[in-house]
């Protein structure tokens, strides 16, 4: 048990200034007793991997929380700088191992921006199909794990995994691997889906809302769930924007910023979908936003299957081997399931990128973790972390 002087602690909390507006402050006064420092992780059931939070507790209340990273660090960027552009594609699968399809696309997007590579229509549609299926996979996983953090005995998680399993099976049938899809290429996609695959995917997508309804019936109205998530980990929009939070976490705070609409990359402008926005920015909003986004993804997928054009899936000018983009730099980003996933590339004309940088949404969304957790209990900290949605492969790279 470590016991620290609360005066120091208070000074430290104020020293870490928060630009722009007030922030959540720890409710901590002199009449409380000793502080307990608990190191949650790197081996802990609900840190979603080898993540560590050093929490200082007053009773069960958190007065300080420092995230510690790096337990899964393998210097992905250095590896990528020492291999060819194509060679880092399979490594991007390992960043966010739940949504390799969108990570692939983000990388392909950046390289295509760097080299000016065109992408045929069919491939654009396939990419959107894969990205939205990945969003379903990721959000299904997230809501499942969130309830595990909330203390269910795996039931919601397994219902979510039951549906995820079906999508993952589709990925396997198409790309050959369940999670490490390695599907996108610069200038197109690797495999053309067969009509049977498309039919199976369409059936799956049409049945997906039934799962969502069942899931919502089971949990969304549950009184314990409401009490555990509403008002927990509140995040105001000014802070969220300043801290660079993206994705559903940002939109739960009511900021309308979805790169599918803002950048309109790929063929997203051709699709009709809405962007749900939260109001309170608490854990419940973050949960519900995922559910609503899944419903929107289903809409996008239905349109994509309807409008999928024929044609080639690779640009004929695309080069697989000896790919050397012109010297220059590019920053490609897209709306990944977890937030803005960006790749910053500097080319010096050689086959290997001179600089390769991943902008990991999981890492940057953790910026305000401490502020969100302060004043809540340790049980809430776990739930807040769960609602942010991190994957350690991407946080630590």
């Amino acid at each position: 048990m470590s016991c620290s002087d609360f005066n120091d602690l208070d000074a430290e909390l104020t020293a870490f200034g928060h630009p722009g507006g007030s922030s959540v402050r720890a409710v901590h006064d002199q009449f409380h007793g000793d502080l307990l420092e608990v190191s949650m992780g790197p081996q802990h059931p609900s840190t979603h991997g080898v993540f560590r939070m050093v929490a200082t507790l007053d009773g069960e209340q958190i007065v300080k929380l420092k995230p510690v990273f790096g337990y899964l660090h393998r210097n992905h960027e250095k590896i990528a700088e020492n291999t060819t552009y194509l060679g880092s594609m399979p490594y991007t699968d390992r960043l966010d191992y739940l949504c390799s399809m969108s990570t692939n696309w983000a990388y392909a997007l950046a390289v295509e921006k760097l080299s000016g590579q065109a992408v045929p229509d069919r491939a654009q549609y396939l990419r959107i199909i894969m990205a939205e299926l990945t969003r379903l996979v990721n959000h299904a996983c997230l809501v499942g794990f969130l309830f595990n953090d909330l203390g269910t005995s795996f039931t919601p998680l397994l219902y979510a995994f039951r549906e995820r399993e079906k999508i993952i099976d589709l990925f396997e049938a198409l790309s050959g691997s369940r999670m490490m899809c390695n599907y996108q290429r610069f200038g197109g996609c690797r495999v053309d889906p067969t009509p049977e695959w498309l039919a199976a995917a369409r059936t799956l997508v049409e049945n997906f809302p039934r799962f969502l309804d069942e899931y919502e019936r089971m949990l969304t109205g549950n009184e314990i769930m409401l009490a555990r998530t509403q008002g927990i980990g509140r995040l105001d929009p000014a802070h969220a924007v300043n801290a660079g939070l993206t994705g559903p976490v940002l939109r739960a705070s009511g900021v309308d910023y979805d790169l599918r609409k803002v950048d309109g990359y790929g063929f997203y402008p051709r699709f009709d979908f809405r962007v749900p926005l939260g109001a309170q920015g608490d854990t419940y909003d973050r949960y519900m936003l995922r559910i609503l986004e899944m419903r929107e993804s289903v809409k996008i997928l239905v349109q994509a299957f309807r409008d999928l054009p024929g044609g080639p899936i690779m640009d004929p000018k695309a080069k697989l081997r000896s790919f050397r983009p012109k010297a220059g730099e590019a920053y490609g980003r897209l709306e990944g399931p977890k937030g803005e996933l960006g790749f910053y590339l500097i080319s010096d004309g050689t086959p290997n990128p001179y600089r390769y940088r991943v902008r990991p949404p999981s890492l940057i969304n953790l910026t305000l973790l401490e502020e969100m957790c302060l004043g809540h209990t340790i049980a809430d900290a776990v739930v807040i972390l769960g609602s942010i949605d991190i994957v350690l492969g991407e946080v630590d790279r």
Partner: protein
Amino acid sequence: MTTAPDSFLERAPLELRDWAVQLLPGPLQWLAHHLITVVAILAVFGLFFAFTTIAERKLLARLQNRLGPNRTGLPKFSILPWHLKHTLFGLSQPFADAVKALTKEDIVPAAADHFLHFLAPVIVVAFSLMTFAVLPFGREYLPVDLDAALLYFFAAGAATELAIFMAGWSSRNKYSLLAAMRALAQLISYELPLILSVVPVVLVTGTLSTKAIVLSQGYWIFGFLPHWFVFTPWGFAGFIIFLIAALAESNRSPFDLPEAESELVAGHLTEYSGFKYALFFMAEYFGLTALSGLGVTLFLGGWQAPFPFLEFIPSYLWFMMKLIGMIMFFIWVRGTLLRLRIDQLTRLAWQFLVPLALLNVGNAAFWVLTTHWAGPLQLVRWGVSLVIVILPFFFLGRSLSAGYAPRTYRYAP
């Protein structure tokens, strides 16, 4: 009340015991009588525990669309010819688990208080077993017929929480310590509604003896409806409060805060391994079984058959069936619900369950005062009693869930 025939099945276990006892010389007979009872309870509920674990795993699995453990069968050296094909649906899993737990390394942290660390699992099992002494398992099957059986039951039951605190404190682990604190808070909060939910039964029956309580539920309204206390307004309310408090007292989901695996790793069990861990596990199930047994005794008519024509089934089987039903319900709840937070847990107890239980005591008093009402007054009696249950539930429930509601969402323009 129709007296059930003392069928052969009903009497068989007792006859067997008496036959065994009379084989022994006179001075030993008293001792043997009780020893056989103790051993029988240990054997029956030990096996019951074993099959509860497998039932829990299989039922939870089915709730979650899985298969559950279904591989363990007979050992390969079994002489039975069908051992190769029959995996017995995995029913021998608990025995494999027991072997695993026994053969695992027992790790005690260097900084732990070794004596308390060892004592905690022993105490927790001992006290949870002691509660079985006062449960009437059948018409003639009551190990100890105490006049203050209920008091004894709650006293023994509360001691297990002390053992959990011991375990948490002695482990010298921060998670264990937090869990120990939680366990204490939970104990104090839920002991009260648990006992208050039982008071109406005591009030109506006028006794603390479990045997008498069961017997008082033993006749039929209109000749066929069972007169169990759960079918009265105060009894139903008491039963629901009892169920919730029993879940909390036995540290079951959604009140499994002391061992909240997503927050406190394994809570007070974090530093336990091997057989000591198994002992805690066992105690948890014993506690659950005992509380379910008490619920069956107090509200579900104990060993009584629900309908007169079903009385040919021995009374102890009825008890066991009701017990299994209760435990299945607990498993179902565990498979569905999520965990409360510690402040919400205590709030639920103090702001919701305790007031409801107190009002329910008044309700029972009203029920006792109006026993002589008959005819249309009987309807008034039921109506008033129902109102005393429903209105507070409605209002207290509203204040408890104030501010929490599903929301509607807007979309970006």
